[in-house]
């Protein structure tokens, strides 16, 4: 149903995580565990590459926000890249576009 892969870009100081597939209530527990583990004790900004994220619901958005809180505790920021329009709309509706830095660099 969903895949979650982690790559650290070699030529950048940021930690880049790639999130793909569908994140819904069913996938949420595993996604929460993996994402929180990935960002725990990270001392760098985090970039979430969402190019292949096809679906996310409020439970997934809540987990992203939880990850943001963890990253901010270490005074870093979370950048979210390449959101599909239908998903970007959800960030805007919930105000999460203000909490994260949304990027559309091509």
């Amino acid at each position, binding site marked *: *149903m969903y895949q979650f892969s982690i790559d650290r870009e070699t030529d950048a100081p940021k930690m880049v995580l790639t999130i793909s597939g*569908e994140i*819904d*209530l*069913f996938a*949420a527990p595993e996604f929460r565990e993996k994402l929180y583990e990935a960002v725990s004790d990270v001392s760098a900004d985090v970039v979430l590459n969402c190019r292949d994220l096809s*679906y996310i*619901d*409020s*439970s997934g*958005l*809540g987990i992203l*926000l939880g990850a943001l809180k963890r990253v901010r505790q270490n005074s870093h920021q979370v950048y979210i890249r390449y959101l599909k*329009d*239908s998903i*970007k*709309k*959800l960030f*805007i*509706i*919930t105000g*999460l576009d203000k909490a994260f830095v949304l990027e559309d660099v091509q």
Partner: protein
Amino acid sequence: MSKQKQIVLAIPPEAAYISLARLTASGLANQLGFDMDAIEDIKVCVSEVLNETISTSSDIKEPITLCFDLTKDGFEVLISRDMLQQSALFTSETGQFALSILETLMDRVILSNDNAGTICLSKTTGRSVPHG
């Protein structure tokens, strides 16, 4: 054709079956002539209601029923289950995200007061969908 057309889907109250409801809702929306953006909105909203229904009452094993009434230019979906408890819906942080999403993407959202388990969403094809 005198009776209004209706599609009914009943699923076990488990997160594993939400994707099936999403699939059925999207197939129906597609058939009713909603555009791609609206189909995506409908999938999202049906999911959000099921999420909330399932996560606020994990002790209940009765099925959840989605009843789609086809209207002239869209549909109305009534999502309900036998609730043994009257837990308040959409109060958690993610629940509040969900409610904002529903209210923005649907034409109309009704949370019935007499039965915390019934939620009605409606959407018509005539209206263009807001894009952020």
